[in-house]
């Protein structure tokens, strides 16, 4: 089972410059753990000391913000596309 994760520029030094990586996981939480296993150091960029998603990080599953789903417990399945996106100013 594998999910594609789009990696934003500030995190690409952990993925060897890759824009997209494949990871395993059944929820966003387990996906973050798998990311960390393959790309050590990436988790603390995404999550704060308490393990929650940082204030200025947005995570989307197939285009939907996980805060409209089940946050870290949002289920993911084979073929889903996950994006990690920094917050953006208004316009």
């Amino acid at each position: 089972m594998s999910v594609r994760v789009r990696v934003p520029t500030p995190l690409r030094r952990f993925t060897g410059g890759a824009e997209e990586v494949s990871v395993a996981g059944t929820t966003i939480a387990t996906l973050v753990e798998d990311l960390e296993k393959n790309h050590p150091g990436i988790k603390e960029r995404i999550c704060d000391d308490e393990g929650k998603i940082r204030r200025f990080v947005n995570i989307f599953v197939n285009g939907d913000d996980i805060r409209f789903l089940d946050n870290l417990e949002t289920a993911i399945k084979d073929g889903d596309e996950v994006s990690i996106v920094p917050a953006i100013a208004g316009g």
Partner: protein
Amino acid sequence: MSTITGLTCRECGQEYPIAPLHVCETCFGPLEVVYDYDSIRQQLTREVIESRPRSLWRYRELLPVSGEPTVGLHSGFTPLVKADRLAAYFGVKELYVKDDSVNHPTFSYKDRVVSVAISKAMEFGFDTVSCASTGNLANSVSAHAARAGLRCFIFIPADLEQGKIIGSTIYGPRAVGIRGNYDDVNRLCSEIADKYGWAFVNINIRPYYTEGAKTYGFEIAEQLGWRLPQHVIVPTAGGTILPKVAKAFEELKKVGLIEGSVRPKIYTAQAAGCAPVIHALHKGSDLIVPVKPNTIAKSIAIGNPADGYYVLRAVRDSGGWGEAVTDAEIVEGIQILARTEGIFTEPAGGTTVAVTKKLIEQGRIPRNESIVICITGNGYKTIEAVVNDVESPFEINARLQEFDELYRSLAPTTTPALGASELH
């Protein structure tokens, strides 16, 4: 002489060079420009500012450009209108409208942030500028890019008002309508910005872009005779302008342009159909829970405001507050401003007027202190919002007798209506 020394993360304080960067690599916090305030204090006096052309660039030492500004030489320095008829309507003593509905060249406060962003993008050597927008920003980027001779791509929700769309496409950018709301546009643009290497004014140029919003606050102070108002009401979408107005007031004190102890109370205004910041404010929470927008106030329909947290902080630090109003109240707000002060604003402005009314009625804003309402956009772009709420013209033949009959049938009116009961 440049007065900027670098960028720093607003959250963790990590330092970065002046470059097209926008988020901290460590914590994803937004980056903020660092100024040499001692140097600014030496160079920038009221006399120097007042001797310069009436544009936002008269405060250029407090803006993040290194050389001479190249874009937006006529932007900013919009009227601060002493709004006596609106004051009478609200029953308050001293009221002003800061009117960016007549900003040059595209009639919104965005001409400020874009002037700074594109000047900076040109310093960095970009040849293509872009933005994610609810309309006004796209209008401004398109116009300024045309004048600067830059390639331009704009990304907007596909269902925008016609005036907001044509208000961009007339300048000849490549315009892309996204099937979705602004938050969807934003997410896509973040990925496009990563891939294409353009100057996205509100993404990779964001630290410089947002600084342009300070000029709104500088002008309020200068136009009040170098003093600060006691209450300022600002609309909130993504959350750029409100914290920057607060910062502007602080900077003026820091560099010695303003004396005295007045600390303006700052209030945030949102539409009830998209009020994530107001929800957090009223709950006493720091956590902004995003919403799916549903309001006629499309220019402030941002359900996931990047700087919402800083809006909360600025409002609370100032001792201010905030409210949300319904679409019906927004339309009424547009009409009140038009019929008392002759200023036609878009729904974002109607929101700010209606929220001001609510805060005065609640007793949150006292009636005997100075108040500034921030009007950031123009109603001629969003006529769809009010088309069903205004009187249609009477249609007659070009015969005097027909007008005589019509006139006799009309109720006697004198000046434009002041009372709410007369608004419809």
